[in-house]
């Protein structure tokens, strides 16, 4: 504890020493009297504040006027000033001097109730504390204001900024409530798992990772939206730092880019109350059409018969007997159940937000409370979130200023149950199981007399399989699962942030200090009920209750000194010294109990059995880091701007030999338009600049203590003796991952800001890639290791246009467009890195090959040519199309993987192209099929403002290129097991001569669904992301309704998607790591159609 306190203590003390410098001049008090009256009606002003102020405008003492406007105050120094203020009047500042009686008037100020901030130039901030004019920016940074996104039904800000910023690729992992997004800024620069950017809130990094030991056990790889629990309506602006020179000031954690978020603050004026309401209906788009129960039960026996010619024995497989004397089986297995429909519903979202802001000369406030309630389109999913925020500014004097930000969020997210054993694969997702579940089985059980009971029909096992923890063929009753299982996460997070600003030398040297405490507690409760799986009570999958709890406590400090010497016409300079520390401590506890007595006992404190591994775990981890940053920006003649920074970082994640890292950066801007020779264009050219930058930033591993070899206890005893084993490889060579970024760009502003063009190219090279789960030969005793190996490049361009093509009093037309492209390629790898993954001799698998300098995410497979229509077609042919004959004249049949597998293709089997015409389909016939990375991504949209109060805004986003493996189509047309199939299989091959593209059904045999281009589809799409019509009531009308501002709007989102992709949604996040990464679509809940009605009013 003492160690934690040291850096905080130091940084606070530094400022306190400055701040508490008070001119201690004991002096006699002097009495001053007076009366305040209104300048117009001459009536006394009651309750006006009369304050003695020193030269720094610090309040020394103060009184209020009485009912007659009289006051009396004892001042300590006659050189001070007297300030008289009250809301509604202009503040008056008077010298005291020798005057002892002040009878004065105050002027009414009713027209300037709210503060009008006139900022000549928009300013940007890289979050570190250095404030720079936007027009002098040397790096690639984009900023989005709250206005731009407030109409969207965005629960989190990542949803709000999706598709609006060039070079920022945000893909939703799932449309379920509470599901997060994967944010990629200029591609994936790391293989280290975490690809989300660093998020800086109000100048201090915000933890967005959960403790390593916490087991989410989610149904798919959705991240948790609670991690960024800031209500979009509290946000003033969001900036994204893209190039390495901009992110270098954040050093060790910034290699994935930086997102800067500033929250709203109070402004001087009477209280302004704002209320916004959003109500949304959400609808699940239609999925792949599946077989009905009747179609399914004619399909299955055929599939079985095709293998050996022996019929399915319906005496033992009674699911297909349809014997009406056996009422139990007959009724339970003769239904036409649409499982997907049975677990879906129309979802809704309501969002209420109330905020109040205002303040006086000394104190300003912004407070908000918001409630967001969602029910998902899958039964059992939902989100309830309460946000509160209080931002207080107190201006002690011109020199000292305190700010406090306190944010509290409580959220309760309900997910569908997911099995922790296959966390992340998405395959036991309830929607996926529902799609594959036998459609002839019943939701509720019929008893042996054929009567419907209210019990769920969850047989312990049937021909389709059973529930297992290691899912070879997991299945369960999806309706029972969504209704009686539970998986919810309750999160409480409170973030108090204290900020102190002190002007050591006014307008020249400022010091600021931030201390942020972040207390983040979450508890996930999961319960797997017997009713969903039907497993016998002797098994430990029954009534399995999990609790997982994490408590994170983080302290961050930042102490800044900003030096701004008075600039002359020619030179200007700003410098920054920043000292930062960060300490994150987390405890995770999990508990597990199985076989509780009832479905209703869902808490692991209930008695049960615990003969399962990891019944109780409680890992603890702590990570500390500290950093120092020097940053300066120099401008000469308003034309030549250079920014230099150097950051040093130390982190406890590394061993003592590699603990510190240095991250320099340099960037510059040449304002060509400012040159004398450009003067002639100055009529229409506002700004033309060229900028370039180089910077380094670092990456750390996710888990602590990797440089130790740790011995941990075995989870069970042997012969009553406890054991220990060596758990990991000690990483002696662990070091920083370094990203070196090069960036060049052009800014062009023309026609009086009507056309604003930004173009940039970049190359981010990541060296010493931290590669986790690097496969090592298992004779080393471990499966995988994390090593610093290889070099990864991300390169591409970004282009954006903001334009106002037409502007008149009654009509403003704006049009924005952005497009970007990112290519990543491995430049070198370690010899330990497996050069291929995937197995082309197995159905459903694609090959990934590592080729240096080629983009990651490429996959290879066979060419699908249709189906062998008859016995004649299966004969092998040579390059000229002639049949190949054996030496004794017998036609040679096409074979698969001779000699190891040696399967002879039969009529009705899938036909793959025999590239080398050797009559043998094997690895030599595997060709390049595609790459999951899109070519271009971007968005565009017009905004039209009519008569100043009706604004219609539309937004489209698009991705071009990128091949997606349609995983759902693989599993719904494989015709390989008892899973339900799509209606495409109705046109399967059945008798010789059939010409079709769907092969015959073969139960667990054949090679009909090898990884081929049959399942690879183009992921290009154009999505009509949103359209909003907002009507702002005219001021006069609004005032009659007793409001200051009043507006209403309707928004429709995800209305239309233009794509040739046949799966649910073409926006698929890449799964897998390293070379194995592919875009495989397993049909998680796609982005939903949403209709929002909104109202916002301020009083």
């Amino acid at each position, binding site marked *: 504890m003492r160690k934690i306190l040291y850096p905080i203590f130091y940084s606070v003390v530094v400022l306190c*020493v400055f701040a508490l410098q008070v001119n201690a001049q004991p002096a006699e008090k002097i009495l001053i009297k007076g009366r305040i009256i209104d300048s117009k009606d001459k009536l006394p002003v009651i309750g006006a504040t009369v304050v003695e102020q020193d030269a720094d405008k610090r309040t020394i003492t103060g009184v209020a006027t009485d009912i007659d406007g009289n006051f009396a105050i004892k001042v300590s120094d006659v050189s001070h000033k007297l300030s008289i203020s009250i809301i509604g009047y202009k503040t008056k500042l008077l010298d005291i001097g020798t005057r002892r009686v002040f009878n004065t008037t105050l002027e009414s100020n009713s027209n300037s109730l709210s503060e009008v901030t006139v900022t000549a130039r928009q300013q940007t901030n890289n979050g570190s504390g250095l404030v720079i004019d936007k027009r002098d920016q040397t790096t690639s940074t984009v900023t989005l204001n709250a206005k731009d996104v407030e109409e969207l039904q965005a629960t989190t800000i990542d949803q709000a900024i999706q598709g609006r910023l060039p070079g920022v690729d945000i893909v939703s992992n799932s449309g379920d409530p509470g599901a997060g997004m994967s944010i990629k800024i200029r591609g994936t620069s790391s293989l280290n798992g975490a690809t989300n950017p660093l998020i800086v809130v109000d100048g201090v990094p915000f933890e967005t990772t959960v403790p390593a030991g916490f087991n989410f056990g989610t149904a798919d790889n959705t991240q948790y939206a609670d991690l960024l629990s800031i209500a979009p309506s509290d946000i003033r602006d969001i900036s994204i730092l893209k190039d390495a020179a901009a992110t270098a000031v954040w050093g060790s954690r910034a290699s994935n880019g930086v997102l800067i978020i500033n929250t709203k603050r109070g402004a001087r004026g009477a209280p302004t109350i704002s209320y916004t309401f959003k109500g949304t209906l959400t609808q699940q788009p239609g999925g792949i059409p599946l077989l009905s129960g009747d179609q399914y039960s004619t399909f299955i026996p055929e599939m079985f018969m095709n293998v050996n010619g022996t019929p399915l024995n319906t005496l033992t497989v009674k699911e297909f007997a349809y014997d009406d004397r056996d009422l139990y089986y007959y009724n339970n297995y003769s239904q036409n159940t649409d499982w997907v429909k049975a677990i879906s519903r129309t979802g809704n979202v309501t969002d209420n937000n109330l905020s109040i802001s205002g303040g006086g000369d000394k104190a300003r406030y912004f407070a908000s409370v918001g409630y967001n309630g969602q029910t998902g389109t899958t039964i059992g999913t939902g989100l309830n979130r309460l946000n509160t925020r209080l931002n207080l500014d107190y201006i002690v004097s011109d020199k000292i200023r305190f700010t406090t930000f306190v944010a509290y969020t409580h959220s309760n997210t309900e997910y569908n149950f997911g099995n922790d054993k296959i966390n992340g694969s998405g395959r036991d997702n309830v929607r996926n199981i529902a799609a594959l579940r036998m459609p002839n089985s019943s939701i509720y059980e019929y008893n042996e007399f054929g009567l419907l009971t209210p019990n769920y029909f969850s047989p312990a096992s049937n021909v389709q399989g059973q529930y297992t923890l290691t899912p070879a063929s997991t299945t369960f009753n999806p309706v029972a699962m969504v209704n009686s299982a539970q998986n919810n996460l309750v999160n409480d997070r409170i973030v108090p942030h204290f900020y102190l600003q002190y002007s050591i030398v006014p307008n020249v040297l400022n010091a600021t200090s931030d201390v942020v405490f972040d207390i983040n507690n979450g508890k996930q409760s999961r319960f797997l009920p017997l009713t969903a799986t039907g497993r016998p009570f002797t098994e430990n999958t029954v009534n399995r209750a999990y609790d997982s709890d994490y408590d994170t406590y983080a302290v961050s400090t930042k102490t800044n000194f900003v030096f701004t010497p008075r600039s002359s016409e020619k030179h200007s300079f700003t410098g920054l010294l920043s000292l930062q520390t960060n300490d994150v401590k987390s405890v995770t506890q999990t508990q597990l109990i199985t076989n509780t007595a009832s479905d209703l006992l869902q808490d692991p404190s209930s008695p049960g059995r615990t003969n399962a591994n990891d019944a109780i775990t409680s890992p603890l981890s702590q990570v500390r880091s500290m950093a120092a940053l020097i940053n300066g920006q120099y401008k000469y003649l308003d034309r030549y701007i250079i920014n230099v920074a150097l950051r040093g970082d130390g982190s406890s994640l590394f061993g003592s030999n590699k603990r510190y890292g240095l991250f320099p950066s340099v960037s510059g801007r040449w304002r060509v338009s400012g040159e004398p020779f450009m003067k002639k264009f100055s009529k229409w050219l506002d700004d033309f600049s060229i900028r370039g930058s180089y910077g380094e930033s670092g990456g750390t591993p996710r888990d602590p203590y990797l440089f130790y070899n740790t011995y941990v206890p075995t989870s069970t005893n042997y012969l009553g003796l406890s054991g*220990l084993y060596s*758990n990991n490889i000690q990483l002696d060579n662990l070091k920083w991952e370094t990203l070196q970024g090069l960036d060049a760009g052009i800014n062009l502003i023309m026609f009086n800001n009507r056309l604003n063009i930004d173009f940039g190219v970049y190359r981010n090279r990541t060296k010493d890639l931290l590669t986790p789960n690097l496969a090592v030969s298992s004779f080393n005793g471990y*499966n995988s290791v994390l090593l610093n190996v290889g070099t990864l490049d991300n390169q591409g361009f970004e282009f954006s246009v903001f334009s106002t093509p037409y502007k008149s009093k009654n009509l403003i037309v704006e049009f924005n467009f952005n497009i970007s492209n990112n290519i990543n390629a491995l430049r070198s790898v370690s010899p330990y890195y497996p050069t291929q993954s995937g197995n082309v001799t197995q159905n459903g698998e694609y090959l990934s090959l590592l080729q240096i300098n080629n983009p990651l995410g490429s996959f290879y497979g066979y060419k699908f040519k249709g189906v062998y229509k008859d016995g004649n077609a299966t004969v092998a042919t040579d390059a000229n199309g002639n049949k190949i004959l054996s030496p004794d004249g017998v036609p040679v049949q096409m074979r698969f993987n001779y000699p190891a597998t040696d399967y002879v293709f039969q009529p009705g089997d899938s036909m793959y192209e025999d590239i080398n015409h050797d009559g043998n389909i094997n690895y030599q016939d595997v060709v390049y099929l595609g790459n999951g990375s899109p070519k271009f991504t971007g968005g565009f949209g017009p905004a039209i403002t009519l008569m100043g109060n009706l604004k219609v805004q539309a937004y489209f986003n698009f991705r071009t290129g990128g091949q997606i493996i349609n995983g759902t189509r693989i599993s719904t047309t494989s015709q390989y097991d008892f899973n339900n199939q799509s209606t495409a299989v109705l046109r399967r091959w059945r008798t010789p001569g059939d010409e079709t593209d769907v092969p015959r059904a073969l139960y667990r045999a054949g090679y009909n669904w090898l990884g081929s281009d049959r399942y690879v589809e183009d992921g290009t799409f154009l999505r009509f992301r949103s359209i909003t019509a907002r009507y702002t009531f005219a001021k006069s009308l609004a005032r009659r309704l007793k409001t200051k501002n009043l507006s209403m709007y309707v928004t429709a989102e995800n209305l239309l998607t233009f794509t040739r992709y046949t799966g649910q949604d073409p926006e698929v996040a890449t799964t897998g790591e390293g070379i194995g990464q592919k875009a495989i679509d397993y049909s998680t809940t796609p982005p939903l159609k949403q209709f929002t009605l909104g109202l916002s009013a301020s009083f």
Partner: protein
Amino acid sequence: MFKKKIYKVLVFSILAISASSCGKYLELRPQDGIIREKFWQSKEQLQSAVIGCYNAMMVSAGSRPSPAESFFVWGELRGDMIEPGLGASIDEVNVVNGNILPTNGVTDWRNFYRVINLCNTVLDFGPGVKSVDNTLSQEQLNAFLGEALTLRALMYFYLVRSFGDVPLKIKSTSSDEELVQLAKSSQKDVLNQIVADLKLAEGYSVASFGNNAYDKGRVTKFTVNALQADVYLWMDNYTECIAACDKIINSGRYGLVTGNSGWFPAVFATGNSSEGIFELQFDQQILNPYFAMFATTRRRYAANTIVADEFYTVDLLDENNKDIRGLDAALKVGDQTIYKYLGLSANNSRTQDVSYAHWIFYRYADVLLMKAEACANANRGQETLDIISTIRTRARALPGSALTPATTDVNGLTDYVLAERARELAYEGKRWYDLLRNAKRNNFARLDILSTAAVRVVPAANQQSALNKLKDPNSLYFPIFQYEIQTDPNLIQNPFYK
């Protein structure tokens, strides 16, 4: 002016203090484990590390099969006594059909090498404990080292019998500096290492821990002897094999449990009987993997239909006259359930929550039959017949399963021992290794043993291709799992699978 000086002094002194305390501030250690610098300090820690090696044979790291599961799968899947059930994975079906590819998950040896590495860790760091902990005697240290040496030898023995040539690693890996990319060592070299390790272990190990459960569950001198017998028999070194068997037989510590209805519960359901030499002891805390393999409706394995009729034979006149090792012991006849790990007695079977039947590596009957096999090949045919007779009498074997080879008929004796081992040690993970050992003897003189076995089990559609593959002796060993080939350029795939 003075104020500014104070600021300067303050700022610099604070910076200086911060800088000097940086190192300590950033020094953090894990709290839910012991780091190596603090481990290997006492004999208790040494014992825990040894126990960890046993534990590693029972658990799977990652989703790969545990060694305990592979003991069964490797030993039986290519044999002729089981057939895949509805729950068998495609990989397992492919092994039965003789269609084994390097991508077949059954061939994943990862968890064996995990045990080997843990043993190596004990062998590398264990001797250093003595210099720190004075209460650790040389005998105690040796006993611990003997356990680690024997377990390592046992793991390598499984690997060479299944894969032929395998990488031989006898140094532990504890840091990323020590990662290596090895080539394969020849089967002969690995076996020599095993023999050397066992010689050392024989001298190190205790004869008894003074506790019956420990004597059966941990490595004793006789565990080492039993393993030596098996290894020498594999190496066709009959003299040494017989010598090792005799050490056990003459120790007087082991005997055959009487062959009545109590035999099955005593040896298999309860375990640690007088017959047991080395048993992996599952218990309430750690259940064995076998229940799920045989018991569920979607079981992975069932007994081959011919086992009851052709292996044990049936007395058509008196159904109660039966070989005690067959029906209701090795298997259930009605639904072909493999019963050895499920039964508590003939009619009373386990439920999943008590499925902790031991895995028996070696028991006395096994040792006797190993000696019988060695004798058959060492011109001591009469002893072979005597031992078989002892085993059969105890088991009340039926006359239908008796053979009458001459004492000089090596082939006939071999077939008889092999058949008797199948009956005695059914489903104890021995069958494939027995078939292969006898087939490979004298430069694969008896490949007919394997083709006879294949005919019994491979489905008609795959039979020809399976029989053809068996003609190539290289196909008798598993391929090296694709994962290993991908991670190590020095590893060369076994010849048949290139």
